[in-house]
């Protein structure tokens, strides 16, 4: 198979995973103004939980990933309720606490799952190649792309078509005014935080057959999520989607064509966007 085609498929796959990771990050960032530096840890935890369910309890891959997502969502909600809630408005404290928690999570994972990478096979049905237009693609990668697009559509429907979504959008745009209008913004915070954490956990498990799971996965993914959000604009679903695929392509093509400067290629467009449009491609100018 053609190298370019492989790179393209890999790029879109990574873009899909990044979207799952960064959509929640972007919402948390946009709605709550919390720079949630535990988001990479949520990704890693989701992967470890899911992999353990499959390998230890022989649970079905998809059920395991859902369970992992729910567990991570519950954990995220707990952290938000118990810790972050007390620190509203203080970025410095939020940065410190989320970093502290990510250190703790990383160390606990190292203790529980040791330093060896854990790899896992894709589910049986998707193991092999899928033939599209006479070309063979990894079926699992295609499935990830479909799942990411499906979740993007669901998130869009949630945000754009439901009452909850309208409240979240109101909260992103103007939290004080939303409060005045009777929206319980603090409950929204918990809902959004759980949603974001759960999506990150789910993304972790989806990525596990591709990346495998290893200590340091959290700090590998966090900067990518950051770049996506800076590129796309905070609080914007479309921004996360576009940003994810841009970064997916830059990352894979950069790694393949300019391995020495891969990170430079990755972060350069972000820098250019910031210079031209500090609020990101689809972000709104801060009031």
């Amino acid at each position, binding site marked *: 198979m053609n190298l370019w085609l492989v790179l393209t498929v890999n790029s879109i796959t990574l873009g899909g995973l990044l979207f799952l990771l960064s959509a929640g990050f972007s919402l948390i*960032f946009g709605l709550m*103004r919390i*720079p949630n530096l535990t988001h990479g840890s949520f990704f890693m935890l989701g992967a470890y939980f899911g992999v353990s369910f499959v390998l230890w309890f022989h649970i079905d891959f998809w059920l395991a990933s859902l369970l992992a997502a729910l567990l991570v969502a519950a954990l995220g909600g707990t952290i938000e309720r118990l*810790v972050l809630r*007390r*620190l509203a408005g*203080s*970025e*410095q*404290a939020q*940065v*410190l*606490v989320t*970093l*502290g*928690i*990510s*250190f*703790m999570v*990383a*160390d*606990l994972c*190292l*203790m529980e799952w040791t330093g060896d990478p854990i790899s896992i096979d894709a589910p049986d049905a998707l193991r092999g190649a899928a033939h599209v237009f006479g070309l063979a693609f990894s079926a699992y990668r295609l499935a990830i792309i479909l799942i990411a697009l499906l979740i993007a559509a669901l998130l869009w429907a949630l945000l754009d078509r439901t009452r909850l979504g309208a409240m979240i959008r109101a909260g992103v745009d103007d939290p004080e005014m939303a409060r005045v209008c009777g929206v319980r913004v603090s409950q929204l915070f918990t809902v959004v935080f759980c949603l974001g954490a759960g999506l990150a956990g789910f993304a972790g498990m989806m990525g596990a057959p591709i990346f495998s799971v290893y200590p340091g996965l959290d*700090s590998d993914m*966090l*900067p990518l999520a*950051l*770049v996506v*959000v*800076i590129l796309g604009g905070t609080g914007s679903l479309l921004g996360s989607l576009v940003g994810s695929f841009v970064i997916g392509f830059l990352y894979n093509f950069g790694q393949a064509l300019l*391995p*020495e*400067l*891969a*990170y*430079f290629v*990755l*972060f*350069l467009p*972000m*820098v250019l966007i*910031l*210079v031209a449009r*500090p609020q990101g491609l689809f972000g709104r100018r801060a009031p």
Partner: protein
Amino acid sequence: MRRLAIAIAVFVLATVPFWVSGSFYVNVASQILIGAIFALSLNLLVGYAGLISLGHAALLGVAAYGVAIILNAGFGHVAAIIIALAATVAVTAIFAILALRTTGIGFIMITLALGQILWGLAYRWIDLTNGDNGLSASSRPAPLGISLASANAFYEATLVVFLLAVFAMAALIQSPFGASLRGTRDQPRRMTALGYDVWTIRFLTCLYSGFWSGVAGILFLYYNEFVSPHAMALSASAEVLLMVISGGSGTLLGPIAGAALVVIMKNVASAYIERWNFALGTIFVVIVLFMPEGIVPGTVRLARRLWALRKRTDIPVAESGQ
């Protein structure tokens, strides 16, 4: 009284090698001083400019790699140090120009991303940096003909630089420029209205901070005689930020205490506690929740409350006096 306290503190610091047994602890003390210089440089941004940088380890890394690369190319220490410092300040200027387009969370995110770029370069640009294996530079300079090869000599030299750094920080903070800097932190709009160029004040502060980060980086290289991409990783930037915030940002003593806490935890406690990373994370969460202003101001506040036994004044130490 104040001068006496400073004199005693300097005396105690200078005699550390004599009352501490073994070069291991002297080396720990050197690490604390290097960490403290680094934390003080970041504190200038975090505490006095209100700008949180999560890419500061990259600046330290630029200086450390700079010295290592130039030394390995066959140049002397003086050339290496000067070029490394100039390179660090130049990189800081680029960082500042990009990151100062925003403040608040935006500043954090941009510095983080820029730091990752440099980390990525150090990690991947193998021809220049030797990648993950790092670069070693196995010679320390000998200022005035005094060899710094021994732990004690290196500690004393580091102490001199450390005192210079503290003095330089104090001088800046107490100067009119320092006052205007605190103004841009608390009331940027009013400062603009008063005719101050907020951007330039912040930019110059970034350069000053970058310079001292470079100094810390050079000491870091000479201490370890080695540098690898780990020195520039996000966790390193996080660590120095934790030093600043845990000790108490916006004070001179805070970052020093924070550096001592982190380095001691890392070197000493890790011998007894297996999971020191976990302990470190826990300590920081606890500090944020129960002593949000940091250890030094927090302790001062508690001490004052005990001392006076009256209703506590609501003026944070950071703002009332330097």
